[in-house]
């Protein structure tokens, strides 16, 4: 309820957004009587950063190799044109 107050959205809509964040591992829900307090899941956010860093590194390595492949394709084409 408290989380919904600042937004012009219905409680079910807010709950749906919170569920998406929870499923993504970005927030954690606790049960406290009738309340369901949420907090940021530090581990989830760090995992996201780590995953993006890993993806970046893998792609950078791959595309640097692709640059070399493209250069050799171009050289082959030039050779073919000369013959």
């Amino acid at each position, binding site marked *: 309820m408290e989380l919904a107050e600042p937004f012009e959205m219905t409680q079910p809509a807010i709950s749906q957004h919170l569920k998406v964040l929870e499923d993504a591992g970005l927030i954690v829900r606790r049960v406290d009587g009738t309340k369901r307090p949420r907090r940021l899941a530090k581990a989830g956010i760090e995992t996201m950063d780590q995953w993006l860093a890993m993806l*970046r590194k893998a792609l950078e390595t791959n595309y640097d190799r692709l640059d070399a492949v493209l250069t050799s394709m171009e050289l082959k084409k030039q050779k073919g044109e000369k013959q």
Partner: protein
Amino acid sequence: MSKLALKTEGDTHVVVTRRFAAPPEAVYRAHLDPSLVQKWMLGPEGWTMPVCINDARPGGKIRYEWTNGKGGAFYLTGEFVELEPYHRIVHVERMHLPDPTPDNHIETRFEADGTGTLMTMRMTLPDAETRAAMLATGMERGMEASYARLESMF
């Protein structure tokens, strides 16, 4: 300076852009021709792709298998959805770690940019569980590569 830009789009997608010095036709071919893909889509140092199947037509199968020659191996399967020669590739892929990860929908665009190409790849952001599984595999792979480099220093 990195030539690659990577950003998240909402909670659901990652968009990667990269410029290449070659024209779109060459970059497009290098993404589909197995003998070319095997030269670059390898991840960390020390890994090779002994199996590369790309049946480049809508519904055609994709299968890539990687190995580090030291017992480390994993593979990816997928299907092509749409192919617009030299301009756009749409495909679905999943990694097998060995359990299959949820389908990753990927659209790759190649646009002429001067004498080169601007490539834009838009992919599904994996869920938390998949990210953790990929990280576990990736870290292992990354660390093996680091250890191999460390060993070569002695």
